[in-house]
């Protein structure tokens, strides 16, 4: 028997497709979703019981779909009550035996998009949405979600269970022709995708592969929105551009031991030019229309960070973008970043004056910014600010980064 290779991540990829498609028949309530997940999981166990001994089928994906369909039919046959309740949603008649499942690429995509809208439901907390998205939209296991979110299995299991109970049976049936409904819910969907990406990009986890997976999953799900005419709106393009610009630095920021190389230490030859180019294209797409969202501004700022020149013109533009961003969406981090840009335009003295007005004395970055700005005036004072920042930093990784910056002061 020849040794055979299976496409990497095949089961993860097919898990989310099978789950989404089955939910289009069973609904996305707690019950329908759990049944769909179980059937998808059992389908892979069937493969495990067969393929190693009999060889991988010529059409592995078609094999999985047939097994999943048979399991769905068996389920309906055995659970008449469930069948009766969901019967109106079954597209083809009422007999389980006649059930046919539409595995076309189009229906898979449509089902996944509906699933995305069902999961990003305002009734669920943000952390529930992210965990549930990782499970049903990305095909991650409980263990993988727990290590990605630096949590434990029990917490994640409970969180998933509670989240599912809050999902409504009809959550799956968003009417994509009702533009108003879609627009309203799209905001929530984008927030979840943005946070999912950040979870991977800024995570404390040392598992670099898993972290990048999270980012690529967020990008893949954003791509689902771009592929649909109703949801392909400027905000979505802007968010995708932002993700491309950040993702372009994956290779450059990696160190062998899993630690991160800081932006100003990176070898920019390792930046992924192709992703930057893609980002630029989507940013141009995003510029159509009249909306100017936080994603537009963050993407524009991120674009400027892919340009490694250090002239005043660049920093003037970045400062201007931060000014706008703070008007659309205030955050302490943005206001600190704005001060850095200001210092690059008007000099460190002006930066110090602006920073001290912020009085963000609980924020480690407030002190590291002051430390950076003071280094040309008073190196001892600069070091003391970094010491304060290190004390306030919440994670080991943050403390290490600040320590390194402190050592680099000159």
């Amino acid at each position, binding site marked *: 028997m*020849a040794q055979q*290779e299976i496409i990497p991540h095949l*089961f993860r990829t097919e898990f989310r497709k099978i789950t989404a498609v089955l939910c289009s028949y069973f609904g996305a309530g707690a019950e329908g979703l759990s049944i769909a997940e179980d059937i998808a999981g059992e389908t*892979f166990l069937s493969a495990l*019981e067969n393929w190693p001994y009999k060889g991988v089928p010529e059409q592995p994906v078609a094999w999985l779909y047939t097994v999943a369909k048979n399991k769905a039919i068996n389920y309906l046959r055995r659970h008449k009550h469930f069948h009766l309740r969901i019967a109106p949603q079954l597209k083809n008649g009422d007999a389980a035996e006649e059930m046919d499942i539409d595995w076309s690429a189009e229906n898979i995509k449509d089902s996944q998009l509906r699933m995305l809208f069902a999961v990003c439901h305002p009734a669920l907390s943000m952390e529930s949405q992210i965990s549930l998205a990782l499970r049903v939209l990305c095909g991650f296991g409980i263990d*993988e979600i727990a290590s990605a979110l630096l949590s434990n299995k029990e917490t994640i299991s409970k969180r998933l269970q509670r989240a599912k109970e809050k999902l409504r049976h009809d959550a799956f049936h968003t009417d994509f022709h009702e533009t108003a409904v879609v627009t309203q819910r799209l905001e929530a969907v984008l927030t979840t995708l943005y946070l999912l990406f950040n979870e991977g990009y800024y995570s404390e986890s040392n598992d670099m592969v898993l972290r990048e997976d999270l980012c690529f999953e967020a990008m893949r799900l954003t791509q689902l929105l771009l592929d649909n005419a109703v949801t392909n709106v400027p905000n979505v393009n802007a968010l995708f551009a932002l993700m491309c610009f950040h993702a372009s630095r994956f290779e450059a920021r990696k160190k062998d031991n899993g630690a991160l190389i800081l932006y100003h230490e990176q070898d920019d030859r390792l930046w992924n030019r192709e992703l930057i180019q893609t980002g630029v294209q989507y940013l141009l797409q995003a510029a159509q229309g009249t909306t100017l969202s936080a994603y537009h501004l963050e993407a524009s700022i991120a674009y400027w960070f892919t340009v490694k020149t250090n002239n005043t013109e660049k920093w003037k533009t970045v400062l201007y973008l931060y000014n706008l961003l703070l008007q659309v969406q205030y955050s302490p981090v943005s206001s600190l970043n704005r001060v850095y840009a200001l210092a690059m335009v008007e000099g460190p003295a002006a930066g110090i004056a602006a920073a001290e007005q912020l009085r963000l004395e609980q924020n480690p970055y407030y002190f590291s910014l002051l430390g950076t700005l003071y280094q040309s005036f008073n190196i001892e004072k600069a070091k003391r600010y970094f010491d304060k920042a290190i004390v306030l930093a919440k994670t080991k990784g943050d403390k290490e980064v600040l320590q390194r910056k402190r050592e680099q002061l000159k």
Partner: protein
Amino acid sequence: MKEYVLLFRHQDGQAVVSPEQIQAWMQQTMDWIGTIAAQNKFVSGTGLPFADAKVVHHNKMVTNGPFGEIKETLGGFIIVKADSVEEAVEFAKGCPVLQGEGNTVEVRQIAKKDGVH
């Protein structure tokens, strides 16, 4: 050359695992069987689905199972050719099932048709 059956016994046959994990097991199992087959010592094998499993008791009572009463369940088996039980044991040591704590692989010789052994 004798034939041995390698029986996979699982401590917890119903543990929920991620698709990625199942795929990793799949690849490991295929590679493991592949190494045995490459020496022309693989005869046959199969996984044993847990779904629809029944146990028939001495009074002909039938229960769903084997879950609940006994912890261990049979997950599958392969038959290999080997010169000695030691060689069969060496094959068994590579079985991915052993990564699970409490899981075992039982090595048993298959009775020869001549009835002498």
